[in-house]
């Protein structure tokens, strides 16, 4: 065990600035009553609207007002009453400042960094797939999930990590729960990361296959990033804004350029099959992981971050201007029957699995521990950065859901159902969706493809193409002048850009984890500057996700259909591990009466993930249960039959192998989580009996830093900051000197 053991007292320390339980002023009572009314009206409209078409803005404002209330009241309660964040206590950034990883950072800047790190393609894709259940289940889960689970997890993990000098999730589990739990968590984190990378890459492959326009624009991001890297290293060191400005301009040019080349010989060369794209991604991932970060990773990250924020702002404005109308049912028949073609399984538990990012994402716990908490200036700021950052991601998820439910729903199902179901042509897909009860025609599917200048939109699974069609519709409605093809490829481009950034960074993080772990037994391998070690570890990580990616791409049953549940469950199981740690720590700190804050979302998360795991492993329905599926196919194979959608014996073998593998992975993830949970339960029982246990929390040191605890400085904090600036003298004051 490392770190100093201290018993934290629950007593003092909550009365600091910004945390006081002072009564609300008349003005804020009026404002918050108004916000609550807006929310109640919007939810009311969503609840009673049946059969008639309603505007998507009801969804948007129901979500926004709920976020506002949750942030104002619930996050404040957690930060100051439950966790007792204390402005008088120095954060690790202040105590250990070294200008590298420990670094006091302005709260608004850190909010931006943290948000850019947690939000990527996940909140854009999950809600699109979940839209097969109708718009209401997804909306409710995204909003309620983020308020009571996702944002709570991010906030509490960040706080506890901050109190432990920014320790990682794995380290905290090892020290606070025990070695076995720690090892289980380490393996789970690594395995889950591989699955996440593979599924993200799968989405890119599905979006780019047979699309020369998309491939051209995405491929150009590599030379653009290399140029930016060279610019920042050699031409004009450090001028990031210039380099990013040039990069974004070139990027937009690359999107336009894709339209010019798609019908040329070059376009023909860039019309790649999925298998070739897998190879390209694997090679790219390996090279990016071995190259120095300044060449590719850092500049690409700048591009991706600015695109991310630009797109979100653009989308919010467009939704308000375009006011699109919802085409989907509130709750579709698939929700009740569990027979949806996009992914198998009924509403419970599979909506909660499919939408991970945006409602509750375990992966965030890796970012909320480690990097971000080492940069927080004041303890209370975890409320803005942890809780607020996750609310923002949830807003992205709601926007993505809206984009999926405002397009023609026949087209939605034609795009998102696997080729085995749609038959792959506009005619067969039209027949398929007519069978589902939509009146979409082959002509309208072909017209939709032509409008975005793609050869075909049928069975473009993975969510990204459907989202791009939705966004193209919203953007061209909002800004007029058509341009659907441009907006479609713009959307594909930024999704692929986010994903490739995640793949770059994820491969590198995976490589570090591997080198670090193996370094425990083989010292040399743990040396990050040892070239052969880098190459071997990168090859192993890329090889692992590349294999899963290849399996997904060639799966006759459809890779997204088969792998997305695995991805969602893995992500939610990681959340279960993180929430377990939070609950253990609350009890150890003697806050049993507040343990429900993370205990309830933990219980809910365990119920959904264990139900889903159980169904995926043991269900007798071959569409849901992996092993039953493998059994059905192997029986048929033994009898010499070929079951659709497999077309020959080889594909039969493939289905059997893939389903068995998926089933094994699923079982391993669930077991690892249970090991952590059972281990944690024992620690909790001991802690309850003892009325709290010592933890590795660092002892309190008085803070000398004057910074606001919340987003806005209180009058008291403003006076303190003014005093500080007078003392330090003009110019030497920190960022707040710029405060308006």
């Amino acid at each position, binding site marked *: 065990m490392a770190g100093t053991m201290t018993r934290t007292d629950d007593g003092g320390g909550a009365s600091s600035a910004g945390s006081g339980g002072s009564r609300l002023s008349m003005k804020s009572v009026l404002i918050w009553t108004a916000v609550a009314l807006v929310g109640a009206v919007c939810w009311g409209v969503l609840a009673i609207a049946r059969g008639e078409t309603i505007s998507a803005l009801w969804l948007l404002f129901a979500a926004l007002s709920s976020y506002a209330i949750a942030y104002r009241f619930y996050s404040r309660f957690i930060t100051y009453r439950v966790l007792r964040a204390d402005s008088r206590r120095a954060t690790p950034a202040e105590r250990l400042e070294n200008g590298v990883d420990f670094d006091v950072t302005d709260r608004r800047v850190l909010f931006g960094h943290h948000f850019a790190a947690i*939000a*990527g393609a996940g909140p854009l894709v999950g809600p699109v797939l979940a839209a097969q259940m109708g718009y209401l289940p997804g909306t409710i889960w995204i909003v309620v999930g983020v308020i009571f689970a996702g944002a709570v997890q991010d906030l509490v993990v960040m706080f506890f990590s901050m109190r432990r000098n920014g320790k990682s999730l794995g380290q905290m589990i090892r020290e606070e729960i025990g070695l076995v739990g720690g090892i289980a968590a380490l393996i789970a984190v690594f395995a889950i990361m591989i699955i996440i990378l593979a599924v993200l890459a799968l989405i890119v492959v599905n979006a780019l296959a047979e699309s020369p326009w998309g491939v051209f624009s995405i491929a150009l991001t590599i030379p653009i990033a290399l140029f930016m890297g060279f610019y920042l290293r050699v031409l004009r060191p*450090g001028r*990031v804004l210039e380099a990013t400005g040039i990069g974004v301009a070139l990027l937009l040019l690359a999107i336009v350029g894709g339209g010019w080349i798609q019908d040329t010989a070059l376009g023909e060369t860039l019309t790649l099959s999925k298998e070739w794209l897998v190879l390209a991604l694997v090679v790219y991932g390996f090279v990016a992981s071995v190259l120095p970060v300044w060449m590719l990773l850092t500049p690409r990250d700048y591009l991706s971050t600015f695109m991310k924020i630009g797109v979100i702002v653009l989308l919010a404005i467009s939704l308000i201007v375009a006011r699109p109308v919802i085409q989907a049912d509130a709750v579709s028949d698939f929700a009740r029957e569990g027979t949806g073609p996009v992914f198998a399984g009924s509403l419970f538990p599979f909506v909660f699995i499919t939408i991970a990012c945006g409602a509750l994402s375990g992966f965030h716990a890796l*970012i909320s521990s480690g*990097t971000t908490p080492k940069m927080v200036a004041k303890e209370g700021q975890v409320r803005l950065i942890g809780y607020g950052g996750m609310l923002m991601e949830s807003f992205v998820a709601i926007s993505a859901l809206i984009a999926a439910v405002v397009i023609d729903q026949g087209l939605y199902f034609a795009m998102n159902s696997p080729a085995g179901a749609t038959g792959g042509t506009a005619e067969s897909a039209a027949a398929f969706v007519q069978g589902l009860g939509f009146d979409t025609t082959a002509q309208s599917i072909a017209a939709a493809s032509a409008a975005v200048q793609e050869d075909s939109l049928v069975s473009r699974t993975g969510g990204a193409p459907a989202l791009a069609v939705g966004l193209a519709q919203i953007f061209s409605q909002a800004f007029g002048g058509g341009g659907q093809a441009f907006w479609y490829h713009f959307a594909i481009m930024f999704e692929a850009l986010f994903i490739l950034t995640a793949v770059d960074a*994820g491969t*590198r993080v995976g490589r570090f984890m591997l080198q670090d772990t193996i370094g425990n037994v083989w010292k040399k391998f743990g040396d990050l500057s040892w070239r052969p070690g880098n190459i071997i570890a990168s090859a192993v990580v890329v090889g692992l996700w590349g294999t899963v990616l290849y399996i997904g791409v060639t799966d006759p049953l459809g890779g997204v259909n088969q792998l997305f549940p695995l991805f969602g469950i893995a*992500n939610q199981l990681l959340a279960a591990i993180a929430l377990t740690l939070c609950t253990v720590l609350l009890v150890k700190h003697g806050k049993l009466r507040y343990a429900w804050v993370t205990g309830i979302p933990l219980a809910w998360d365990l119920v959904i993930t264990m139900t889903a795991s159980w169904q995926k492993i043991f269900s007798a329905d071959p569409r849901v249960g992996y092993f039953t599926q493998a059994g059905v196919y192997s029986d048929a194979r033994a009898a010499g039959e070929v079951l659709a959608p497999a077309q020959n014996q080889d594909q039969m073998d493939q289905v059997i192998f893939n389903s068995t593998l998926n089933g094994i992975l699923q079982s391993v993830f669930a077991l690892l989580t249970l090991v952590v949970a059972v281990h944690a339960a024992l620690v909790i029982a001991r802690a309850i009996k003892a009325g709290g246990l010592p933890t590795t929390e660092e002892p309190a040191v008085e803070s000398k830093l004057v910074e606001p605890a919340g987003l806005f400085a209180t009058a008291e904090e403003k006076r303190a900051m003014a005093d500080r600036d007078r003392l330090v003298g003009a110019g030497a004051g920190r*960022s707040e000197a710029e405060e308006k």
Partner: protein
Amino acid sequence: MTATLTRAWEGLRWYLKEFTGEARWDDYLAHCAEHGHEPMSRRQFERERADAAEANPMSRCC
């Protein structure tokens, strides 16, 4: 009106420079001036920052 716009523009510029890390160079110059050090060249400074980033990859989520 123009005063508000100027302030908003200044605020945005400040935010972007902080966000991208460009401001770190200015912080460094201020730090050197305060302590009377001779600052290294910007090229050297940015190289050292890039080398530090090499060992500290920021994880990116999905």
